[in-house]
């Protein structure tokens, strides 16, 4: 990487032709214009729909723009220091942390357990897999409405069931019960995690597990010493995507708590007042574009930091088949498919 960055110009003498078998192939494979032509749609999209909006938000976050008057001025880092003294923002951040800590590990563990069960040779395995995965394909608006009906205080099935054992009806959709409903609707989609873990389990060579059995390992030992380490990259992947998904939590808390038809970010109760709800409210309910953009950037940076930290911390725990220090080093197979051909 560093080598390519130092060049600066487009001409690269001789370096690129190293490693090809036939020079005759070379001319067509190394025309950079063709490559850039092919990736142009993504590149344009990346610059215009990702980089530019991010930069625009960063610029907005240093102003007091309100989206209405068109008059604004540069305020430096004021918006960022304001976050530290905004109790709602801090509360929302803590809530989001709690929600993430509560749902991500639970989803992964539950998904893994289901994957192990569904990886057995059992009858109707396909049907079980389909049924348990089914809720994961239900659109979020649909699942939020489902759970709103299920936990409705007056006619919900949950209150009917707990009524059978004599518990008085609970108003689930307001504080603090609504947090339980939010966690429940999230866990309902555990099938997504189950499928990923299942595909990981299917990729583990059976000989490894059988060899361990032959050596006298019990089922738990095989799972913890062989299966789990081999699954660790997939678990890491789920941790990271799970965190990124759950800090964006917005639609479910919004739809779960709107008492009447129209959902409004300002009516979301305390216990599900997640960070994105706060951001959205600052933008579109209060028109504090500059401040809300600062909130957005704080979230973005937090996610970046968290991802880096998780990668660092997990470096020891995660087992890669083609880790750099193992003798059978084969980095090329995954990273650069051209070399193998």
């Amino acid at each position, binding site marked *: 990487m560093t080598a390519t960055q130092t060049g600066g110009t487009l001409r690269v003498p001789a370096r690129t032709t190293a490693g090809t078998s036939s020079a005759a192939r070379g001319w*067509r494979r190394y025309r950079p214009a063709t490559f850039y032509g092919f990736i142009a749609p993504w590149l344009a999209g990346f610059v215009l729909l990702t980089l530019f909006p991010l930069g625009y938000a960063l610029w907005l976050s240093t102003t007091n723009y309100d*989206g209405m008057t068109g008059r604004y001025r540069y305020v430096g880092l004021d918006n960022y220091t304001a976050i530290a003294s905004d109790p709602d923002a801090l509360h929302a951040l803590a809530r989001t942390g709690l929600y993430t800590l509560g749902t991500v590990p639970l989803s992964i563990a539950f998904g893994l357990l289901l994957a192990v069960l569904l990886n057995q040779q059992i009858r109707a395995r396909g049907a079980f897999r389909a049924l348990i995965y089914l809720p994961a394909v239900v659109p979020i608006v*649909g699942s939020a409405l489902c759970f709103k009906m299920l936990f409705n205080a007056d006619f919900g099935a949950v209150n009917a069931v707990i009524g059978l054992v004599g518990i008085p009806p609970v108003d689930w959709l307001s504080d603090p019960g609504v947090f339980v409903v939010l966690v429940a609707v999230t866990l309902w989609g555990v099938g997504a995690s189950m499928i990923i873990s299942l595909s990981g389990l299917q990729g583990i060579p059976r000989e490894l597990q059988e060899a361990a059995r032959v050596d006298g390992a019990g089922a738990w030992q095989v799972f913890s010493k062989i299966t789990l380490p081999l699954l660790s990259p997939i678990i890491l992947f789920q941790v990271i995507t799970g965190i990124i998904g759950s800090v964006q939590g917005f639609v479910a808390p919004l739809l779960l708590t709107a008492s009447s*038809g129209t959902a409004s970010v300002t009516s979301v109760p305390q216990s599900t007042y997640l960070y994105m709800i706060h951001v959205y409210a600052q933008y579109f309910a209060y028109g504090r574009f500059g401040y809300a953009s600062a909130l957005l950037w704080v979230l973005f940076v937090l996610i970046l930091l968290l991802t880096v930290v998780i990668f660092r911390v997990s470096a020891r725990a995660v087992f890669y088949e083609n880790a750099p220090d193992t003798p059978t080093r084969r980095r090329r197979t995954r990273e650069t498919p051209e070399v193998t051909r």
Partner: protein
Amino acid sequence: MTVLERPATLPTPALGPAPSRRAGRRRRRAVYVPLVVIAVAFLIPLVWLVSISLNDDAGLASGSLLPKTLHWSNYRDAVTLIPFGRYAVTSLLLAGVHAVLATLSSAMVGFGFARLRARGKGVLFMIVIATMMVPAIVTLIPTYLIFARIGLVYTYWPWVLWGLGGSAFLIFLFRQAFSAMPSDLEDAAIIDGCGWMRMFVSVFLPLAKAPCLAGFILTFTGGWADFISPSLFLSNDQTTLAVGLSAGYTTPAGTPLYTTLAAGAVLYILPVLVIFLVLQRGFVNGFVTSGMK
């Protein structure tokens, strides 16, 4: 666990005492019982939704768990009380256009990353992967503010643009698929005098039907489910079913009409479930995750 899977004819002396038949049965029960309980529990929310969609207010108030008579009229109300058909067409159109464009565009970009070479390719691919880590909502709101300034809000253009830009995950998926194809294909095409674009369109793309289908289905269902973009970028009249559904179905006074809402929700969820059940094998057996292996 693996002992169970071994064919009975294989002698397994090295494994110690063979598990007795009763132990096997107990173990099988330990797998089936939790699975049945969980599968049933997971179906309850959907069953409940359908049950409410066939009930009436009196039935709900009486607290009976299942409707006494089936009120199919709720479904008629669901499609007439709000412009259900128009919302559904918008959802279909936006999700469809976005999915087609995103699939084709990602295929093209994935082909570039798999088959072509240029300076900076490695770095660019790292950026593709890194964009998967950028929370979508962080770019979405500023995009809305920008589009509002240049008049792209309250039009369907954002979906076209997002589609053309492709999706990082699909690019990754297509890169994997195109990398795995033999290079003889290229040589043959070159000998026939094909350019790279022709080669992509008429040689490689037809061979990538599975990732194309996967990409289309994933993007389409994602678009059908999307709530935030249409609620931001579209007015209430031109919005999609996801937004229309969650905002409509109230009496003029604002009291929610639960039975009608439930019927509308069933109609909204149903197409996705049908797609899933038809392609269930593909979903469950891994095209969702095929890029990750």
